[in-house]
């Protein structure tokens, strides 16, 4: 990777910087083994990797949602606008403009879509009218939500729920959204729709995104920069187009070999050595 492509070396300090953090669950399971990354203001940064690589853990370490899952950041630090945020509680963080949209949407099932959106504004001490205005703005991004505003979110489709989740985060007037697996379980068309909105928000509102995604193909199409995690470590990073053209990424994450995409039919099994373990 060339030095100029590294966002952390930009003249201004990055919006978010993670320095060599280690995360341990339950006091025993080491999930992140020293992860460093940076998100510059106004950019979309993708965090890529397989299941269990530590993407979600990284996001939760930033938003401080780990504590309730018996996880703990044991080393390293996280800075947002130059301020250490690793000991802040999530609510403080939201007030500072960092909001996470969790994997699997996590809408409040028994609340209507509009109520869901309203909860996003919980930390703000804005006037009713101001919040109303923001609500309308969210509806302009997601016209579909306006139509279904009174439906209980539990009864809406996956795509609508994902939109609700993002819209809910927007209600907090965030500067930075941590977006976890927005494409999971959604049809290709809906995935495109969601990513278009992400790009839109980034462009028009200047919201920065750190998005964890397995769908490397789509993610790299929309992101500016990408990090690839494997087994709790960053193994590769670079500008999106660089990653996209990297042979290894192509082969392992995009399923493309130089001779075009390999058919799943032709995937080979390499029989591994049998292991002895009771």
């Amino acid at each position, binding site marked *: 990777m060339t030095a100029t492509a590294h966002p952390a070396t930009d003249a201004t300090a990055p919006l978010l910087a993670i320095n060599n953090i280690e995360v341990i669950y339950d006091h025993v399971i080491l999930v992140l083994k020293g992860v460093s990354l940076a998100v510059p203001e106004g950019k979309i940064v993708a965090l890529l*990797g*397989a*299941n*269990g690589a530590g993407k979600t853990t990284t996001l939760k370490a930033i938003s401080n949602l780990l504590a309730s899952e018996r996880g703990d950041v044991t080393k390293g630090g996280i800075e947002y606008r130059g301020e250490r945020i690793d000991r802040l509680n999530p609510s403080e963080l939201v007030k500072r403009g960092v909001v996470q949209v969790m994997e699997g949407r996590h809408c409040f099932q028994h609340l209507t879509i509009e109520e869901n959106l309203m909860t996003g504004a919980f930390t703000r001490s804005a006037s009713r009218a101001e919040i109303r205005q923001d609500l309308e703005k969210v509806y302009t991004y997601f016209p579909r939500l306006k139509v279904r505003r009174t439906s209980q979110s539990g*009864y809406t*489709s*996956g*795509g609508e729920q994902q939109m609700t989740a993002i819209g809910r985060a927007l209600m907090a007037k965030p500067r930075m959204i941590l977006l976890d*697996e927005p494409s*999971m*379980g*959604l*049809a*290709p*068309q*809906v995935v*495109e729709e969601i990513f278009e909105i992400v790009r839109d928000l980034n462009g028009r509102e200047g919201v920065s995104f750190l998005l964890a995604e*397995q769908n490397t193909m789509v993610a790299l199409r929309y992101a500016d920069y990408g990090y690839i995690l494997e087994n709790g470590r960053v193994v590769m990073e670079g500008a999106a187009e660089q990653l996209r053209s990297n042979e290894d990424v192509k082969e*392992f*994450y*995009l*399923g493309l070999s130089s001779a075009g*995409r390999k*058919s*799943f*039919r032709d*995937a*080979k*099994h390499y*029989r*591994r050595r*049998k*292991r002895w*373990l*009771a």
Partner: protein
Amino acid sequence: MSARDPEPGRRIGDTLLQVQHISLAFGGVKALTDISFDVREHEIRAIIGPNGAGKSSMLNCINGVYSPQQGEIRFSGSTFRKMDPHKAATMGIARTFQNIALFKGMSVLDNIMTGRNLKMRSNLLAQALYIGPNRQEELAHREKVEQIIDFLQIESVRKTPVGRLPYGVQKRVELGRALAAEPRLLLLDEPMAGMNIEEKQDMCRFILDVNDEFGTTIVLIEHDMGVVMDISDRVVVLDYGKKIGDGTPAEVRANQAVIDAYLGVSH
């Protein structure tokens, strides 16, 4: 790339499962409307469609978890208006779930052993005493289960509680549990959701091997078009509970209704 065998006709047999005019509604909300399709012996049949199209509901109707309001299901010669899950299991229909439905508190071995449940006979007293026939039975089935464990390459985790395993391995264990029942028809609900390419390739291999080696018929729901197009013989496309396409992967890919509703232009 589309057809699997040079001569699919020789591999694929008669109709095994026939879904006829199935309609299903939940409290007035229609999930499925008049769906019909068939699955032939030894075939890999994919069901695709956008989220909420009713794919999982379709599987749930086939193995009796939901009972459709209308229509019937023919499976290997018998016709059912309402299948019940237990009967489906005895007739040789096995199933995996979209969100892993493993028994979290049990080890991999025990999870797969439950798949043999229907094949075990010992009575309660014999089980309590754990002597003679029950012991023999347990050991015999353990043997079978170990074969599956070998096949899926999960030997090293056989005594691990499934809750502690990574997602991809859990998916594999769930496949193993379904295979343990030695099913004729295997229903797979998004077996590759949330996997990376490497894991997907592994899973495809397992599915194809099962299909080849045991001759198991497979019905598969999958979002990854690459996978669907590569490994399935025929594809059903659902949208908002209606069938909008049915045919070989090539046919489906060329179907304008399918492109509009689902595949989108940019794929």
